[in-house]
């Protein structure tokens, strides 16, 4: 048991100030013990039942918080999965006379399966369509028992679900409560480990959007299935214990209002902690009881309290609580970021394979509009290849085609001789082609350090199971990410800002941060989409300095940019696009001298020697 505790409760970071790890563990165990003994203190059947229900609903809600709160996925079908777990266990126990413990295992497995099946729409439809579909699935699943009234008891419900036994004695209600509480405790520890591991960054990326996740080299399908599965196992774990409370379940026990209660609890808690939904469930279950004395006005007051509470604390209850607690207990949210070394970052970048990016004959039309036709160019390691052209000439479309976000109608893209066209964008990132976006795709409420760490996800995958168990390998990977990210931040000149949230940085710094994150996977090719847009004065200089250093490290840089001074200053090779086709290629000098380019884009004045001086 002690070994298990050590595994599940990783020690707090050594550098972190505040109470030592031992104190925190003891405090957690004490809280658990007090909550476990509550039925004895309350000493009455009603309150024991209430506590049991709160614990069961909490298990479901912490699972929902993982998908909804942490990953921003509207997988709202948790109550349906909960019902599947409850019914499979109930039917196996009551109708087929299985051993209750075995039936519970089968129930969790069935819930996991149900969760995966119910999540299929989430892989196809996005956002609110998935929300509505999964909510509907949640209410349909319990109704399906009416199709097989024989084994399931149908509409009237299923009775005679005998409790699991220990040494021939069925569990008492308080013992059942402690069992549920133990499951809840283990779930919270596992989720805490998971969200603090590198997977937590993957969830934050998913929350930001598929594009963010893919540019970190992660498959959205894989990350989605992983979290859906976790949430389903938790909903199932709550479900398999539930039928034993009364030995009876019916389809009416899982109405839409239960789904809304679980969703509400998750939102009331807020996604600032894995345990936040427990607070939400407790409030939603207890507040109506407290106002019992008002009898017929009870629900009215409950509704008013929901409105008033949520208006006062729109970000949930736990965020302000936590801020208050951390003000007392420990000054900083996390340990000081490690000091990084720019040289180490350069050394890692220079270890790249020096692959050449070759683009041949790319074509793409949107409807009748030919956005890109027959575009070819080559980007070599240790060089900056600029792609310029007027707005709407197909620069960004070309980047999207090369990085796999759009599928080309025709043409080839090869990376170090390997054809990559047609591959999914996250695969191409793993082939070591990284990119940035016109609008920085940053995790706004995460630190600069964590943003860079997100760029490493694809290159050092941690098995989700290892992350949940808090195995040393998972923690070592995170520590390595932290050190490597600190090196990159030092390289990008952002070292002192490592601990700041990304959205508190200036636009210029956000650009540098996005470049640092793109470099986190040690790419051989780096595509930059207008990195200087919106930058002022010295910020452009900082960016130019960083890009020179990246070039010097042997990376092939493709720069889409409107800032001509920057392009002419930095580029080794320039590709000029005009209405989707390549107008000219060459060195900056050659391109500048090309009369066709001058006419179409740079303006006739650019050819006059006098302008050269201004450019400098």
């Amino acid at each position, binding site marked *: 048991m002690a070994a298990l505790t050590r595994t599940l409760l990783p020690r707090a970071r050594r550098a972190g100030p505040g109470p030592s790890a031992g104190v925190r563990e003891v405090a957690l165990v004490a809280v658990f013990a007090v909550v476990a003994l509550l039925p004895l203190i309350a000493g009455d059947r009603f309150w024991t039942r209430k506590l049991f229900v709160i614990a069961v609903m909490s298990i479901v809600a912490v699972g929902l918080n993982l998908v909804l709160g942490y990953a921003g996925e509207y997988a709202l079908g948790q109550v349906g999965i909960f019902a599947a777990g409850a019914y499979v266990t109930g039917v196996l126990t009551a109708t087929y006379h299985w051993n209750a413990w075995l039936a519970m295992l089968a129930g969790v497995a069935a819930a996991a399966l149900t969760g995966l099946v119910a999540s299929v*729409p989430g892989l*196809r*439809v*996005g956002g*609110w*369509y998935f929300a*509505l*579909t999964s*909510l*509907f*699935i949640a*209410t*349909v699943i319990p*109704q*399906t028992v*009416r*199709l097989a009234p024989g084994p399931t008891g*149908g*509409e009237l419900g299923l009775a005679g679900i005998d409790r699991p036994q220990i040494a021939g004695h069925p569990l008492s209600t308080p013992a059942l409560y402690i069992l549920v509480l133990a499951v809840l405790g283990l779930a919270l520890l596992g989720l805490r480990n998971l969200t603090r591991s590198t997977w937590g960054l993957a969830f934050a990326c998913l929350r930001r959007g*598929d*594009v963010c996740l893919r540019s970190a080299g992660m498959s959205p399908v894989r990350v989605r299935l992983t979290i859906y599965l976790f949430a389903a196992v938790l909903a199932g774990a709550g479900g398999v214990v539930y039928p034993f409370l009364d030995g009876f379940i019916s389809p009416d026990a899982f109405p*839409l*209002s239960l789904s*809304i209660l679980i*969703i*509400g609890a998750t*939102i*009331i808690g807020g996604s600032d902690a894995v345990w936040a939904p427990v607070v939400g469930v407790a409030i939603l279950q207890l507040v109506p009881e407290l106002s019992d004395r008002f009898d*017929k*006005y009870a*629900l*009215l007051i*409950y*509704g*008013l*309290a*929901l*409105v008033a*509470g*949520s*208006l006062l*604390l*729109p*970000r949930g209850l736990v965020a302000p609580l936590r801020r208050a607690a951390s003000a007392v207990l420990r000054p900083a949210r996390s340990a000081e970021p490690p000091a990084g070394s720019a040289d180490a970052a350069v050394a890692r970048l220079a270890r790249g394979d020096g692959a050449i990016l070759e683009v041949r004959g790319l074509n793409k039309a*949107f409807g009748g509009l030919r956005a890109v036709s027959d575009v070819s160019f080559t980007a070599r390691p240790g060089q900056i290849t600029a792609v310029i052209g007027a707005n709407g000439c197909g620069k*960004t479309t070309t980047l*999207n085609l090369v990085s796999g*976000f759009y599928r080309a109608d025709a043409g080839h893209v090869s990376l170090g001789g390997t054809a990559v066209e047609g591959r999914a964008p996250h695969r191409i990132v793993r082939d070591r082609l990284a990119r940035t*976006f*016109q609008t920085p795709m940053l995790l706004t409420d995460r630190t600069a350090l964590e943003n860079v760490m997100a760029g490493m996800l694809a290159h050092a995958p941690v098995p989700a199971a290892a992350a949940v168990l808090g195995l040393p390998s998972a923690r070592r990977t995170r520590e390595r990410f932290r050190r490597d990210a600190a090196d990159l931040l030092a390289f990008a000149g952002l070292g002192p800002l490592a601990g700041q949230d990304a959205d508190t940085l200036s636009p210029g710094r956000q650009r540098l941060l996005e470049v640092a994150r793109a470099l986190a996977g040690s790419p051989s090719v780096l595509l930059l989409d207008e990195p200087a847009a919106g930058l002022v004065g010295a910020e452009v200089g900082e960016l130019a300095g960083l890009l020179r250093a990246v070039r010097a490290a042997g990376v092939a840089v493709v720069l889409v940019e409107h800032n001509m001074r920057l392009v002419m200053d930095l580029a080794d090779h320039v590709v000029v696009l005009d209405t989707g086709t390549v107008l000219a290629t060459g060195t900056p000098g050659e391109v500048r001298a090309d009369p066709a380019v001058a006419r179409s884009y740079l303006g006739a004045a650019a050819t006059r020697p006098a302008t050269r001086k201004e450019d400098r």
Partner: protein
Amino acid sequence: MPAGWEPYVSALVAGLGVGGVYALVAMGYNLVFRATGVFNLAQGQLLSYGALIGFTLWVSHGTPLLLALLAVTAAVAALGFVQERITVAPLARAGTNSMAWVITTLGASVVLENIAQLAWGGDQHPVPPLADLAAWRIGGATVQPANMIILVTALAAAAALTAVTRYTRAGKTWSATAEDAEAARVRGINTRRVGAVSFAVAAALSGFAGFVVAPVTGASFDMGSSLTLAGFVAIAVGGFGSAGGALAGGLIIGVVDSEAVLMLSSAWKDVVTLLVLLLILGVRPNGLFGTYRERVI
């Protein structure tokens, strides 16, 4: 499975009636969601107020039908406006990431339902047909006029909303806000007012719908809660965007429900509806009439 075509036609007509109610709720969701990013979880409760106020005015006090209908629509519109001011407008500062509206509109639904219960009691109040028409018969099939009245109401509401959004200044203001609220603000549109008006219009629709559906379902304080989900499914099938989508989604779900009960059994109703929903979203991930954009970056 019954023989002959008559039962299927009767079920089709009944389904179109029920589907008309779903469609009216879905149109309300669409109006409010596109303008404010909020699902009003109290939309169904607003509908029950239409039925209950209508019952009081028309059945209990003998108010002339048209006057009662106008008064009901205005009263529920005002209720929706007030609800928006209290439960949604104050959240504008909390930012678009906040999901606090789920709790505030849920709270509003609880409050509205309980006030209705306190005021009108827990019983279902029967409401006579709005017009004294005999049921039409097509061969052996029965067409209930009450169902037709609901269907016509839904069709008229969808047509009116479409015309308003296309041809009037107020409607275009709504469209601009729905398309891109930030761009609309830059162009000088008061998007908060658009949100409040959308709530009021959606509530007016629901109030009207409650009044016309009451002769079929009766008027009761809890008639709205079951419509919450049906409206969700209707909007998912039809697609976010237009009143036409909500109309199509509502009618499809209503007819599928009704025919599934006839052909299989009531136990199959939701399962068949789910299969239809998944089928439609499988082919068109943004619903039948939702807009789809390839550009992702």
